[in-house]
């Protein structure tokens, strides 16, 4: 199992939550209107809290002990217990159960951006505004900040992000006499050339089972399928013109059998990356290091580039994955927990370590200009400064992308609509309509107003 933010979780939760409700006999209150903002905490109180012996529990799937050590060196009174509580669906089940049970929840938890709204809706996360979190805003990539901050408060500190680029095999591209495509139109032409040169190879794979990855491509094209007002109103625009335009583009490639449609993060897909079935991968910034572990034999043959663009010369990208560190409302030490999350992800030295020790792409802007990260010449990519390239892509990610407060059914529905159409070479635009209908029906059944 690889890191946490690499797959959309098909979450569990409700069941565990109900079980916990049964055990505790309390009733789940679903995010009432924003509570009155708490009074800001004074610097004196903060200093006192940081000097008081405290133990924090931190749930995180990445091995961040070195970064925690930095924090503890600065604040010796605070001890942080790092707990790897797993990842994916099981992780969220555990977290939601602990929250509902009223005990056993950590002080600080890693939560993927697309799950943030659901935890905010359930009123599980502490607003970090009183602890001065707003001052950290400029430390982070703008779109990452937009994933944790709403009009009502700041519910987490961004940890890492996944701006999208293109990782491609130079040998296959050379054989087909194509160069990294600057636009999607070029990409389609290159797709034909690659498949013509070798019928067993495809320029890329589009996954019928990874909504998060596919949504990244829609994100790049300017589509904004979801919005949520933080209360009871959602808007769902999965079949908007922008969405359909992108679907139409892939429809053409899928129908002509110029891209493969294998489920990703399966054995078959790993094999495909390793044996050249896929000549490129539209990958997030955490992909390059992941690829080295998966396709070690292909070292030196890969290069990274920007995603092809919809409009020549206009640079835009999307994002796939990434997490925030949130402070749970139940934490007995909210000040220390908030400052820990800020330090771990916002402190320059700590954020640089995130990028060098564990293969995360830090959300902290300052770390992304540190030579320790940007100067890293990656042998697997023929000595290319891959991290540097992704730091240049990062600012081009559109900032206003929102999620619904229930992403699991949306992801599940993707497999049965869009994914099914990809696999069966059916109508992708029709699939967007079906996906839209299913998500709207679900939202209404859960009592949301759909605008």
């Amino acid at each position, binding site marked *: 199992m690889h890191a946490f933010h690499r797959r959309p979780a*098909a*979450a*569990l*939760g*409700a*069941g*565990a*939550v*109900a079980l916990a409700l*049964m055990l505790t006999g309390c*009733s*789940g*209150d*679903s995010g009432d209107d924003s509570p009155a903002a708490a009074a800001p905490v004074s610097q004196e109180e903060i200093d006192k809290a940081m000097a008081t012996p405290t133990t924090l529990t931190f749930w995180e799937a990445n091995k961040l002990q070195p970064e925690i050590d930095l924090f503890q060196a600065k604040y010796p009174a605070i001890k942080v217990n790092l707990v790897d509580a797993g990842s994916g*669906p099981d992780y969220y*089940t555990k977290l939601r159960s602990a929250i509902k049970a009223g005990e056993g929840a950590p002080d600080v938890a890693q939560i993927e951006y697309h799950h943030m709204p659901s935890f905010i*809706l359930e009123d599980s996360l502490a607003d970090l505004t009183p602890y001065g979190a707003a001052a950290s805003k400029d430390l982070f990539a703008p779109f990452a900040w937009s994933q944790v901050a709403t009009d009502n408060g700041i519910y987490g500190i961004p940890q890492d992000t996944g701006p999208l680029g293109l990782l491609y095999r130079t040998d296959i591209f050379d054989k087909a006499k194509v160069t990294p495509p600057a636009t999607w139109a070029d990409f389609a032409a290159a797709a034909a050339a690659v498949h013509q040169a070798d019928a067993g190879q495809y320029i890329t794979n589009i996954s*019928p*089972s990874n909504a998060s990855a596919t949504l990244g491509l829609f994100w790049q094209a300017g589509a904004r399928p979801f919005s949520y007002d933080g209360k*009871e109103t959602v808007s769902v625009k999965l079949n908007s013109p922008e969405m359909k335009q992108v679907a139409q583009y892939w429809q053409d490639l899928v129908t002509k059998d110029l891209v493969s449609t294998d*489920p990703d993060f*399966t*054995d*078959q897909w790993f*094999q*495909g990356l390793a044996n050249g*079935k896929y000549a490129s991968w539209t990958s997030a910034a955490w992909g390059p290091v992941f690829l080295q572990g998966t396709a070690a034999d292909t070292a030196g043959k890969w290069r990274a580039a920007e995603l092809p663009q919809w409009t020549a010369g206009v640079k835009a990208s999307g994002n796939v994955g990434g997490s925030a560190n949130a402070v749970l409302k139940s934490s007995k030490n909210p000040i220390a927990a908030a400052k820990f999350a800020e330090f771990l992800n916002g402190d320059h030295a700590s954020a640089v370590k995130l990028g060098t020790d564990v293969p995360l792409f830090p959300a902290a802007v300052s770390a992304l200009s540190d030579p320790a990260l940007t100067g890293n010449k990656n042998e697997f990519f023929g000595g290319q400064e891959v991290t540097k390239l992704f730091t240049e892509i990062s600012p081009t990610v559109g900032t206003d992308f929102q999620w619904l*407060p*229930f992403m*699991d*059914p949306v992801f*599940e529905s993707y*497999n*049965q609509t869009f*994914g*099914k159409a*990809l*696999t069966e070479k059916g109508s992708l635009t029709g699939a967007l309509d079906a996906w839209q209908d299913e998500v709207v029906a*679900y939202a209404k*059944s*859960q*009592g*949301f107003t759909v605008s």
Partner: protein
Amino acid sequence: MTTTAEKASAPTWRRRQRIAAYLFVAPFFVFFVLMLLVPLFYAGYLSFFREQLIGGNAFVGLDNYVRALQDERFLRGVLRVTLFLLVQVPVMLGLALLFALVLDSGRLRFASLVRLGIFLPYAIPGVIAALMWGYLYGQDFGPFAQAGRALGLPVPEFLSSGWMLASIGNIVTWSFVGYNMIIMYAALRAIPAEIYEAARMDGAGEFRLAWSIKIPSIRPSLLLTLIFSVIGSFQLFTEPQLLKSISPVVVTGEYTPNLYAFTLAFSRSELNYAAAVSFLLGILIMIVSYVVQLSTQRRERQR
């Protein structure tokens, strides 16, 4: 049997024995009540409510059940496992019976080795079995596909929508054929040898023996394996759940009724509806099991 004299002479001893007996079964009953009955009743209670992300919890009576009976996804799942049952169960039990009879005939060398070999898959956890078969079925790297390519033969796409149910049936058969065989084989060993001698005196061959004596003699075991298999088919969960990660578009969250209940509870936050679906499935299993038992018993009486 105790006589009245004994009863009169040792009432305390009797009572003590009775208490001891209850103490012996107590641990089981404590767990039975806590781990099965309480959750069961709680699930039943839940199925009469409806909780939403917005708007909280409300009593809705039988609404969830009405919805389930009209729910195409649920009904399709039931239909799918019914089809599975009609094909997979006869094949599996037929094979198990054949192996049991062959082993029992004593015509095999290394019989114990063969017996162990057939039984071994049952010792492999279902999770591991499904993962292993998932690899074997693979289109690009699976041995079947590779052999097919090497020999220039077409190999079916085991994980495509047309083949998936058969592929799952194969995994289940492979896993449970040994288990059912052992039950039948044990029953066969219990048949007294004199009956065979008498039959052989009358000139019956091995096949005649099997057909006229062995199979009728082990009818109760056959019925037992049939009931277990029927229940197992309706409860199909592990194999599709694991193949779902390999073939997520074919095996959707509603592939079998159990998988659907799981998806409703853990992915769609519709716990109350999931409870209703589970209960309906339980009722359905009871009805089917009862019908199977009744029909075979009637045949018993007619004989």
